[in-house]
């Protein structure tokens, strides 16, 4: 699946949920069923500090592609990082850097992109792009 196909699959999951609580339930379920992050990566250096939630993100570079892992101490931020990992993992640094993450708006999570939102979705995306950029420059 391409990056956009993965986004479309997530949009499809949310498509028929018009109640906010059902959307949140799906996000919570994603977090609770997620593999999370390997213990070796669950360290202070990998923390993206939100105001209230804590998110860990790590990345590996194999065969020209970036593989992410992520986890949070809250289920809502956890579900969000989980979707980002699902969409961006296995892509090339260029595809990650150029990605238009339209799924956020389509599933109604745009409010979470505000820099003041305490789950720091914007910070998660930024950190994931920084990894991609770092791998790209290492590679060149």
């Amino acid at each position, binding site marked *: 699946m391409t990056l956009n196909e993965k986004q479309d699959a997530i949009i499809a999951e949310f498509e028929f949920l018009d109640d*906010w*609580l059902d959307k*949140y339930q799906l996000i*919570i379920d994603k977090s609770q069923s997620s593999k999370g992050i390997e213990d070796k990566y669950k360290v202070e250096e990998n923390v993206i500090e939100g105001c*209230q*939630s804590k998110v860990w993100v790590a990345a590996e570079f194999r065969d020209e592609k970036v593989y992410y892992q992520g986890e949070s*101490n*809250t289920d*809502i931020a956890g579900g969000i990082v989980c979707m980002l990992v699902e969409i961006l993992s296995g892509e090339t640094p260029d595809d990650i850097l150029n990605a238009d993450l339209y799924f956020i708006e389509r599933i109604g999570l745009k409010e979470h992109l505000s820099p003041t939102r305490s*789950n720091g979705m914007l910070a998660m995306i930024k950190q994931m792009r920084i990894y991609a950029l770092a791998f790209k420059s290492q590679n060149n």
Partner: protein
Amino acid sequence: MFNPDIYRHDFPILSQQIYGKPLVYFDNAATTQKPLCVVEKIKSGYLEQNANIHRGVHFLSERATEAHEAARQKVQQFINANSSNEIVFTRGTTEAINLVAFSFGETFCKADDEIIVTEMEHHSNIVPWQMMCERKGAILKVVHFDDNGVLNIEELRSLLNEKTKLVAIAQVSNTLGTINPVKEIATIAHQYGAKVLIDGAQSIPHIKVDVQSIDADFFVFSAHKIYGPTGIGVLYGKETLLEKMQPYQGGGEMIQKVTFEKTTYNELPFKFEAGTPDFIGSTALAEALNYVEKIGMANIAEHEHQLLCYAQEKLSAIEKMRFFGNSPKKSGVLSFLVGNIHPYDMGSILDKLGIAVRTGHHCAQPVMDHFGIEGTVRASFSFYNTKEEIDILYNGILRAQKMFKN
């Protein structure tokens, strides 16, 4: 029997729908909603009475000055200060504490002097003292509380000595709801010659305050916590102390005579009010004080106490419910956690149900450290809240619990 519905009409914001559900506003400890009369006062202030105060000779300026000074007298009467010279308008509680920490510190404190705060203070009653101690080489001491959130008065006694210059303490904890025995604390501190600053941010909307009866040397609060506007607050200080203290900020209003060689300062309270004061906000604050007086502070306290008891009883039936702050003397603040649901997750779900609560450390990280937690969910009540709203909160928590399978 107190009927909150009579007063809810004064607060149009409360009849809003949030995500299609009626708003349940339980974030009153962060800020209270404003009644129509307060909003009207701000509006008429700008539309009919706006002119810079004090030195103006024209009609509007005189009217605005009279209204501003009448507001000062209203505050004086509300907290029973001895004189309106003891009422300094500030931007809020935080600025009032910073003012005292600076001016009292510069005037009375030297190296090795001691300041006492408590473990349950809001950051704004910790950090200004830390900064002052750093500046003067003074030492900050801390009184702790037990697991019910009751302050250890014996520890306070043991910390006090002739080097103690000031004890800074909240009358009501914003996180635990504990009502501290400030009168007793002032008596003990005064035995050692220490002064007392009482942070009234969380007590002023709930408890009848009499600064002379509790013998506070300083008492501070914010207008927005008592149905008044944001951006204005009050410092009460005993006149004899304020007289001796050096000014906090320099500028217009606070001077008597300025030359390049020497400037002399204005009298109290203007010495501490550099720049154009919020003369519209002050009149709106006075209006808010009139409003709560009309309802009656005793009626407010009684209704909020009933809400707290009802909420504690109702919510304690929820499985894995933990309350933080079980002091026998407690104001309308309920801090809690359910199982291992993160407070941010709980708050987000309650939000989608139209329920406004606060989550996190509530600017009181030492309180969180005491219990070894990151944060709590906090529901805080006002006289306009109802038992039905607590039922909605109860059902909301159960709903969230189900969603998190916890």
